[in-house]
């Protein structure tokens, strides 16, 4: 077998046992790796109805056939589990040396179950597994824990760790690696529930590829293309470039989605941050793009540094009504140190600010624009202190607790807080949010690309939006399973055909673009089947009432509305385009056509371990 070890490692932290489990070519070809293979393993390993924070709930780290090759942006891994925020499937991706080291440790995926009696670190050294006490690491920031572990174990080890938020089961805690985060859906809380502070991996087990010369040639070609115009945005400014453009298009969520433009946008603009604060640009391992822009926090040498993306900038800035870049950058660094998803953190605080201004929460200092209160609340959330304990539950649960009208403006889908795309101003994206298996999600649906093009009327979505949403979702499913970075997507002419060629050179399989299109559809539907198994209902595929009843008030989108009837028409068309039933369930004939029958037998239907 080329490109794979052909096995995954299962570790039970309750008793420290471990075993290697074979992965056959049939499974690997159907699900590739990353999010796809992780979804398959989640079906197999998660007991139906399991509490995401219970010992039996599996936490799954998944690599891919491309990891370890010289293909640019391929050093990525997926973390997959049932989300404690949404109670639905969740896959979150991260990058860099951990992926390469984990693959060299000798497995294609790692499944962690059970709960340790005390804080532990899971060490996997060339296939040898040990579970070691980690009491001295508990409470440390991710960066400090990583540094301490590498100092102890050696520089050949790379680590995935949780911060204080994960230890305290904040439902949107992240898993961190070298300041990057598998961020969405609270997988850090799943790790914390197992008292697993960190996973450290190292190894020497290289995986052969089918045609090494062809892979090198493809890597050179892809790297050359990655230096072109399609990635210039990421190299030169990073994703923070979105902020001013979104503001001009009246699509910048502001003050908990009450407004769609922000007066303070200029002060937070990526263009201004670059001119006044940027100190360095970095890249993940095996990446030629280099999208990470590092900024001085206080505009001076003594204030520290932080990298920031558009999503963090929007969520901790305009969404909370904060325009001071010092506050926003400090807030982003605090989230990094605690191990908090910045989107959910900012959205939950913005929601609380609106609750306070409406009198639903007795918190007189909690007001839009109050930067000191924002910083204080981030710390309280990470430590589950006072009001932070309630907000650590996320907007859906907090709204239910607060009561009154709060659920109507809690900004989430399926419990996952909405990213920085105003749904009423980007209505193909609104559909992508509503139907997303992970909840409101800009990384699993890139439907905003249609909104920012001539292919869709972004202010008046229609049934025609459905195919555009499906198309971007399928592309994301493929990229997340290969795994290649989405920032590379613009360099491909035909993503599916070119990916098939790459995969063929690595695995030796005669893969075609059409096969990968079907694979992408299979993966999206496999996620849906998991959600159905876990209790999904049609009512989950929607947006909060605010978005369906209130019109936009400013800028070029002023007056735009998204009536429920329009959204429902788009959703029905989406189900049809996916081949699903009108009620959103998956017909048996499609399950068979996509070769997904074995998933319906899943739930502790574990395959035998390797001898």
């Amino acid at each position, binding site marked *: 077998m080329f490109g794979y070890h052909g096995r995954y490692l299962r570790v039970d932290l309750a008793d420290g046992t471990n075993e290697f489990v074979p992965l056959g070519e049939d499974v690997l070809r159907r699900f590739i790796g990353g999010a796809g293979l992780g979804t398959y393993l989640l079906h197999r390993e998660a007991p139906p109805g399991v509490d995401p924070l219970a010992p039996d709930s599996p936490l799954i780290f998944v690599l891919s056939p491309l990891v370890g090759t010289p293909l640019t942006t391929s050093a990525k891994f997926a973390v997959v589990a049932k989300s404690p925020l949404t109670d639905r499937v969740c896959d979150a991706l991260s990058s860099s040396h951990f992926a390469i080291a984990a693959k060299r440790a000798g497995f294609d995926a790692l499944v962690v179950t059970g709960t340790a009696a005390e804080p532990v670190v899971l060490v996997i050294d060339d296939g040898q597994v040990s579970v070691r006490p980690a009491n001295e690491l508990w409470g440390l920031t991710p960066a400090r824990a990583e540094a301490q572990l590498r100092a102890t174990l050696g520089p050949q080890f790379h680590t995935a760790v949780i911060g204080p938020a994960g230890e305290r089961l904040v439902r949107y805690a992240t898993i961190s690696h070298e300041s990057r985060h598998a961020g969405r859906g609270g997988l850090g809380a799943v790790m914390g529930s197992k008292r697993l502070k960190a996973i450290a991996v190292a190894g020497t087990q290289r995986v052969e590829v089918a045609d090494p010369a062809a892979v090198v040639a493809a890597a050179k070609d892809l790297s050359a293309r990655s230096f072109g115009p399609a990635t210039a945005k990421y190299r030169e*400014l990073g994703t923070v470039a*979105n902020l001013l453009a979104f503001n001009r298009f009246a699509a910048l969520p502001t003050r908990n989605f009450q407004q769609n433009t922000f007066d303070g946008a200029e002060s937070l603009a990526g263009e201004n941050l670059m001119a006044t604060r940027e100190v360095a640009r970095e890249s993940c391992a095996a990446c030629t793009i280099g999208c990470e822009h590092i900024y001085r926090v206080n505009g001076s040498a003594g204030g520290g540094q932080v990298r920031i993306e558009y999503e963090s900038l929007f969520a901790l800035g305009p969404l909370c009504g904060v325009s001071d870049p010092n506050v926003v950058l400090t807030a982003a660094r605090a989230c990094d140190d605690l191990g908090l998803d910045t989107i959910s953190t900012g959205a939950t605080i913005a929601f609380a600010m609106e609750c306070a201004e409406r009198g639903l929460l007795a918190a007189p200092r909690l007001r839009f624009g109050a930067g000191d209160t924002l910083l204080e609340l981030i710390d309280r959330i990470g430590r589950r202190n006072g009001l932070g304990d309630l907000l650590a539950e996320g907007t859906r649960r907090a709204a239910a607790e607060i009561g009154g009208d709060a659920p109507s403006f809690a900004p989430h889908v399926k419990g996952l807080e909405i990213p920085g795309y105003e749904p009423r101003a980007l209505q193909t994206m609104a559909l992508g949010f509503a139907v997303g298996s992970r909840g409101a999600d800009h990384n699993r649906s890139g439907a905003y690309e249609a909104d920012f093009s001539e292919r869709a009327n972004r202010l008046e979505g229609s049934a025609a939006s459905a195919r555009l949403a499906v198309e971007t979702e399928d592309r994301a499913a493929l990229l997340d399973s290969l795994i290649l970075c*989405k920032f590379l997507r613009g360099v491909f002419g035909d993503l599916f055909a070119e990916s098939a060629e790459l995969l063929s050179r690595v695995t030796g399989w005669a893969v075609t673009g059409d096969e990968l299109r079907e694979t992408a559809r299979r993966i999206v539907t496999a996620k849906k089947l998991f959600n159905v198994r876990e209790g999904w209902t049609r009512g989950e595929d929607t947006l909060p009432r605010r978005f369906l009843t209130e019109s936009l008030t400013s800028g070029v989108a002023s007056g735009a509305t998204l009536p429920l009837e329009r959204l429902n028409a788009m959703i029905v068309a989406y189900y049809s385009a996916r081949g699903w039933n009108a009620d959103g369930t998956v017909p048996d004939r499609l399950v068979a056509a996509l070769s997904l029958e074995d998933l319906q037998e899943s739930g502790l239907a574990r395959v035998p371990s390797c001898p």
Partner: protein
Amino acid sequence: MKRPAESATRVTIELFGVPRVRAGLRACEVTAASAGEAMAALEAECPALAGCVLDDGWPLPAYRLSLNGQSFITDRSTRLAPGDSLLLLAADAGG
């Protein structure tokens, strides 16, 4: 979007992200009757955009052109009206 033909008139081009950084301009005014004429005028005024943002007087596929933030245009012959704004930004709107 086809619009009634008009004589050449002043329109504003707003630049976002890489186009803004490369050109060193937030916006500029040009005289143009069509989107194609406007982009050609921009390329003449900001040579730094040639080859990396604009090619032969039109945005590369990695960039998008919006008319007044209301629609996106791909046709050089799209007619412009007095006071129109053309917004030039990266095609990869996400992050």
